[in-house]
């Protein structure tokens, strides 16, 4: 469950509204998952709605950065983070194509990934963006606004939240690596066995 709190506020009206909506959609999905007798269609449409809204939010944020002339060093990095998220989330897209009981596990992973990612991205990157836009509005050049952020102190609670989210993202990836490695091992064993069987088959065939 991703609870909205003041620390997530960027103080940009429409950005905050979109973030709240995304948090809400994510929580709705979590609630649906916790109900036992939920249909595949329901989950599927909830996932799609969530992803759709998130991509929409990225689009609007990037437009805002262009309009506000945010320094390229930030907008390029920000854009890359969005792209990387979209790439990762598309790897989860097999959810909608898998009509089986494992869907619960898959959506669970998606939800965890999005919760950690949104926490890290909203508290870190989005707030950096908001601080620059505020400084540009009050008369700084985009370059000044970007450079002034280097010395901006963050409160330890926010830093801890960002750090924990990143650590969780890392742990989830490591977990996935471990599972894939196990699968590789099993497949390799399987291949060895099949090869031996084939050899026996050709041997008996020739005799």
């Amino acid at each position: 469950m991703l609870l909205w709190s003041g620390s997530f506020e960027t103080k940009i009206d429409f950005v905050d509204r979109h973030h709240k909506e995304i948090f809400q959609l994510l929580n709705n999905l979590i609630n649906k998952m916790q109900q036992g007798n939920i249909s595949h269609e329901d989950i599927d449409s909830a996932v799609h709605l969530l992803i759709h809204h998130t991509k929409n939010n990225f689009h609007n944020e990037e437009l805002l950065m262009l309009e506000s002339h945010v320094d390229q060093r930030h907008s390029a990095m920000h854009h890359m983070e969005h792209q990387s998220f979209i790439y990762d989330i598309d790897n989860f897209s097999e959810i909608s194509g898998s009509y089986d009981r494992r869907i619960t596990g898959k959506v669970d992973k998606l939800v965890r990934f999005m919760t950690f990612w949104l926490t890290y991205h909203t508290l870190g990157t989005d707030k950096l963006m908001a601080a620059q836009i505020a400084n540009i509005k009050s008369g700084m050049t985009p370059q000044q606004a970007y450079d002034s952020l280097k010395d901006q102190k963050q409160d330890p609670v926010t830093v801890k939240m960002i750090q924990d989210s990143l650590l969780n993202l890392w742990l989830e990836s490591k977990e996935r690596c471990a599972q894939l490695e196990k699968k590789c091992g099993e497949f390799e064993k399987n291949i060895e066995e099949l090869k031996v069987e084939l050899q026996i088959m050709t041997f008996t065939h020739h005799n």
Partner: protein
Amino acid sequence: MFIWSDTFNTNIELVDLQHKNLFQLLNKLSLNIKQDNISYEDVNNSIKLLIHYTENHLRDEELLMMESRIDKRHLTKHRMEHNSFLYDVGLFSDITSSDDRRITRKATNLVRFITYWLIFHILGTDMLMSAQLTNIKAGMSPQQAFDMLKDHKIDPATVNLMLDAIINLWLDAKERCNQMEIKVTELQKTIESLQSKQEPSTINQSEDSALEMDWFIK
């Protein structure tokens, strides 16, 4: 390449010395790998030395914490981070058993992993440890020293270094996942093709019956 700076000073002599040595070993290894005419044994030995030295260092830190009677809440978490690191390094251990050219790439991955992990761990957990040890020495109880940490502020440059290190650990793990996924798909294809070879008789049969049908229709 990692360059030491005061940001990494914990102000505990033994710990700083060992950290510096570790970074030196890491830098030496990454230089070694870049040379073309490096022997397998050389890389292998450097890796073994590095892992051995790291294990030793982690043990020394834990001993120091126990001797200073640091708060259990910190000790448990600190130990867990060490153990999780050693587990991950163990997953790289196939480096030493792979007698082939790919050792360079594997050693590069290992160097990246240990470097990023050390940056994150020293700037985060080790600094918290050092702050507590200083306060305990100055007369605080271990509990007080631990509770004081809540107000422990870190300068923004350090925060950025630390968060970047975790991001890199995450990105490397994701990259590894992607590679494994490709491998899994390839293996699956191999299995399917082997399975189809294994049942040629059934395919022949269906072809035969199809021919019979043809003949029958004619």
